[in-house]
């Protein structure tokens, strides 16, 4: 059992790494990006060298470097997930009100967040399961959801019970209204928003099959990812 469990975790990590790679490829040079706690931090590992992407951590720093190891660990230098990190040249430190002013004032180009659910119009649910015994804890999630210019979600497309996490309406408690622009998943990438859901990319499944599995959500398929277009490219 413990072996199975480890295998599960590795495969989960591989899935997350693949999504992180997709997202990392999208960050334009010199953009300011916040990576949410947990899996979104993996995106940092896949940014191309010299990408010029500047990472913000909401506990008060710009130009955060990779995780710290060994002698580099400094308890005064942590990220929002309370993991020891490093400082890159050109870094700046600031207090919490300034850090959230930066975020809420729309100065971050992108933030990447995990999610329990995202709705077709971009509502986000990622802070609370709604379970009555859970201790509610929101941190900076609601500020990030409405603060960054573009909010991207990184998640598996289906939960452990096989239910889609891209839904007509979120059933989990909301983090923010109509704030998500893109959803990166293991099976495909989606644009969400006022015009509904559009499939931008697929992984290991045909567009038509994927769309079928997402019913009752209506998904428009980008011309480039229709099965016909992919067949033509082959």
């Amino acid at each position, binding site marked *: 059992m413990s072996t199975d469990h480890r295998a599960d975790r590795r495969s989960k990590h591989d899935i997350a790494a693949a999504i992180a790679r997709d997202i990392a490829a999208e960050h334009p040079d010199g953009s300011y990006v916040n990576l949410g706690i947990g899996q979104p931090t993996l995106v940092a590992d896949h940014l191309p060298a010299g990408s010029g992407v500047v990472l913000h*951590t*909401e*506990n*008060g*720093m710009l130009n955060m470097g990779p995780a710290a190891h060994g002698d580099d660990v*400094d*308890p*005064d*230098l*942590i*990220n929002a997930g*309370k993991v020891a990190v490093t*400082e890159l040249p050109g870094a700046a*430190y*600031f*207090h*919490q*009100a300034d*850090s*959230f*002013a930066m*975020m*809420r004032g729309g100065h971050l180009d992108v933030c990447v967040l995990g999610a329990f659910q995202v709705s077709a119009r971009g*509502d986000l649910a990622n802070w*609370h399961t709604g379970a009555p*015994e*859970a*201790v*509610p*804890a*929101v*941190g*900076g*999630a*609601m*500020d990030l959801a*409405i*603060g960054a210019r573009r909010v991207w979600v990184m998640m598996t497309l289906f939960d452990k019970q096989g239910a889609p996490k891209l839904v007509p309406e979120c059933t989990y*408690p*909301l*983090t*923010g*209204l109509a704030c998500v622009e893109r959803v990166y998943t293991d099976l495909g990438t989606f644009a969400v928003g006022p015009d509904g859901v559009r499939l931008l990319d697929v992984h290991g499944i045909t567009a038509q099959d994927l769309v079928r599995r997402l019913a009752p959500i209506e998904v428009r398929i980008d011309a480039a990812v229709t099965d016909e277009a992919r067949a033509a490219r082959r």
Partner: protein
Amino acid sequence: MTARVCAGYDEAVAGTADGATVLVGGFGMAGMPVELVDALIRQGAADLTIVSNNAGNGDTGLAALLATGRVRKVICSFPRQSDSWVFDGLYRAGRIELEVVPQGNLAERMRAAGAGIGAFYSPTAVGTPLAEGKEVREIDGRSYLLEYPIHGDLALIKAHTADRMGNLVYRRTARNFGPVMATAARTVAVQVDRVVETGALDPEAVVTPSIYVDRIVAATQESAA
């Protein structure tokens, strides 16, 4: 009034009244004023409201204060952590009140308290369960919630270096809530690694000006005593 350098941590928290609202700095353990919190435990004030980003880690510092049962309410953004068992137990037993505030609102509400702002319209939490009971206002086509200041009777914060007047500099991400809380409380007690002579800090690099600081305790001074 310019700050006083105290002989020890106990002096820095003296006079805290029952029912006080205490702002406690730190994000996790970075910037957590553990020794001042320990002194507050010894001081014995009860029926406290604690405002802090988290609700204690492990069994020391804020967690130890919660464990005394002298905290009535916690206002924080993120109580649930892998090592927040003290808070979790009290909460599940119904022995502590919790107000969850998004981290940006928590910081901005204390900033408002320090800046004399009566209230402000925040873009955060609109349409979420945390909007319940709050006034909503549409401004320029966007919805906002009305948020009120959070004032402290006492702030306990940790900085890196103080000069004798009370000017402060911090270290890296341990800065976090310190500078904001220093503006928002009637009495501000700061623990620092060291106290230097007035004039030794670069006036361009001072993060918390002396006007905000009342009591200073230095770690090195303490250990020498």
